[in-house]
């Protein structure tokens, strides 16, 4: 080890690995990953969300999955849960929409109303 800067570089690289194991994630993003969700393309959506979260260094966000919530026709479904606010359900999400949801809703705090289940119904 030559310098503190080198140590810092390794720390930053390894940090993302370890923060996943914290219990104190404030925001939870849940992707429906049942058969219906996967068939509709939930996997690339999940990947896009994780990618965006990692790129923006959002350590307080946990990306998890869930089963079928019953509205299979609207899959892929993504739910965003921010403490103290009502859960927001996004439907028919694709990779592009997913990235937008992360940047708009989670970072800027503006719900992307046009993708929500309310707008689709």
């Amino acid at each position, binding site marked *: *080890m*030559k*310098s*503190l800067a080198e*140590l810092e570089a*390794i*720390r930053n*690289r*390894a*940090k*993302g*690995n*370890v923060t*996943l*194991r914290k*219990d*104190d*994630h404030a925001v939870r993003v*849940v*992707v*429906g*990953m*049942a*058969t219906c969700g996967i068939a509709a393309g939930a*996997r*690339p959506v*999940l*990947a896009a969300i*994780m*990618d965006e979260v990692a790129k923006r260094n959002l350590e307080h966000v*946990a*990306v*998890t*999955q*869930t*089963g*079928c919530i019953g509205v299979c026709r609207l899959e892929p479904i993504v739910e965003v849960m921010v403490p103290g606010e009502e859960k927001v359900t996004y439907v028919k999400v694709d990779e592009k929409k997913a990235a937008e949801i992360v940047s708009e809703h989670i970072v800027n705090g503006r719900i992307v109303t046009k993708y929500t289940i309310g707008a689709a119904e």
Partner: protein
Amino acid sequence: MDMVRGHILCCGGTGCTSSGCDAIIKEMEAQLAAHDLEKEFKVIKTGCFGLCALGPIMIVYPEGAFYSRVTPEDVKEIVEEHLVKGRVVKRLLYAETVEEDNIKSLNEVDFYKKQMRVALRNCGVINPEDIEEYIGIDGYQALGKVLTEMKPQEVIDVIKESGLRGRGGGGFPTGMKWQFTYNSQNEQKYVACNADEGDPGAFMDRSILEGDPHAVIEAMAIAGYAVGANQGYIYIRAEYPIAVKRLGIAIAQAREYGLLGKNIFESGFDFDLEIRLGAGAFVCGEETALITSIEGHRGEPRPRPPFPAVAGLWQKPTLLNNVETYANITQIILNGADWFKSIGTEKSKGTKVFALGGKIKNTGLVEVPMGTTLREIVEEIGGGIPNGKKFKAAQTGGPSGGCIPEHLIDTPIDYDSLMAIGSMMGSGGLIVMDEDNCMVDIAKFFLEFTVDESCGKCTPCRVGTKRLYEILEKITSGNGTMEDLDRMEELCYSIKSTALCGLGQTAPNPVLSTLKYFRDEYEAHVRDKVCPAGVCKKLVKYEIVADKCKGCSLCAKKCPVGAITGEIKSPFTIDSEKCVKCGVCMESCKFGAIIKK
């Protein structure tokens, strides 16, 4: 698609290894491959989570699902339900974590709620065999800070200011020890780590080395810089193969990353470490015996002074600290002495790890702030006594400690209050006893251990503990006299004041404390020739209650010595001359007709 979306943490401590975690990890890897998930989930073998009673343990993140007592057959279900479909397998969850439909965070579970993990902070969180994970949670930052920003005396001042005391038993102020070693003028000095954890029931040092070996390595390098030593030795029991292996891997990785070796962080400071395996003698945990053993001689203590800080390894000044003490160092450097001082009691700062064992629900490892009461540890964190039995006593400090009776259960636990009630902190073993334990038998158990482990160098310990044991044996066989009790007490005090090292000086503690708090039990053994708890075999008698006996002959068939006779359909009898008091008859009787007196 190469993205890790979840981590599967499996405990790889000694407890879970013996309950089969390796088979589970293998099955998990096979199942992940079968479902094409091996790139999405990372399987990590960590150190001990502390809740050994429920092992093998598996935690799946980011959900934080805490699966307990997992078997290889359960793994398929976890993969198919939880990992593929996102449905947590509720039946395998640790029951305490399930609350209605939610999974409670681990920190809210009773077992963890009152805990504060400083020394154990990374155990069960990181992969101990991967230095990058340790660096990822601020590992080696403290060493970097010390080498680039602080002078040795400043480091020592921080440790002194923090109030940290030795976690190996005695509770000597750590900063003072560092100062003494620093003050000793010599070209060659050493630092050493005492990982010869010998107290029956204590396993915190093993868990730290298994779960977070770099914390100890980093702290030893800091200590080396502070006292002016560039060589360190870790003296560890050969009976800890997993810890030895992981420590070896960690040292090799630290060398590879330049965190051990020459010119660390270009500061001009060199430091390296070597492992020395102990040969299994309890006395080698005593500092002078440990030093003698590292030098390659038979592990025997020698009189102090000179203390190791003046003349230790090869007569050079040596700093010797315990594993758990070292595990606190990096946190004190990073968070400051004031942070550390804010935890604990007036004279005992910080936290202490206890190994909970005996008659308690949550057998395992817990870390609490100093000053937590015994009641909180036993009833809240430990989950109380199983089978509705009543708490009788807790034994702390292993063979050097004493028993704390029920009326003192609200004692806040720290070095001084334990001393005041005739026990000691020791390394932190905490064995809980219920009404089925005989206190005389407990004292005898610990004495038997010290008799075995006495190195034989000094007479008070070699002969004294043996005589003490013989008197205890006499009492438990029903041949004791009241004079024996007085003689025993006198003998205890002479051993305490004349033995050469800590082993002998503390060996009588289990006898003295039980004699103090449970004298009535001793008197029952001597005067009435009964063992109130029904443990001491020679004082126990099994009898068949004629009214309840149906004459089925089952007990007679089970009796290994043929002590039970009788005619079918009429009451049987036990010949107490032949009876070996094994209790098989009582267990086998379907009518509860056999009683123990």
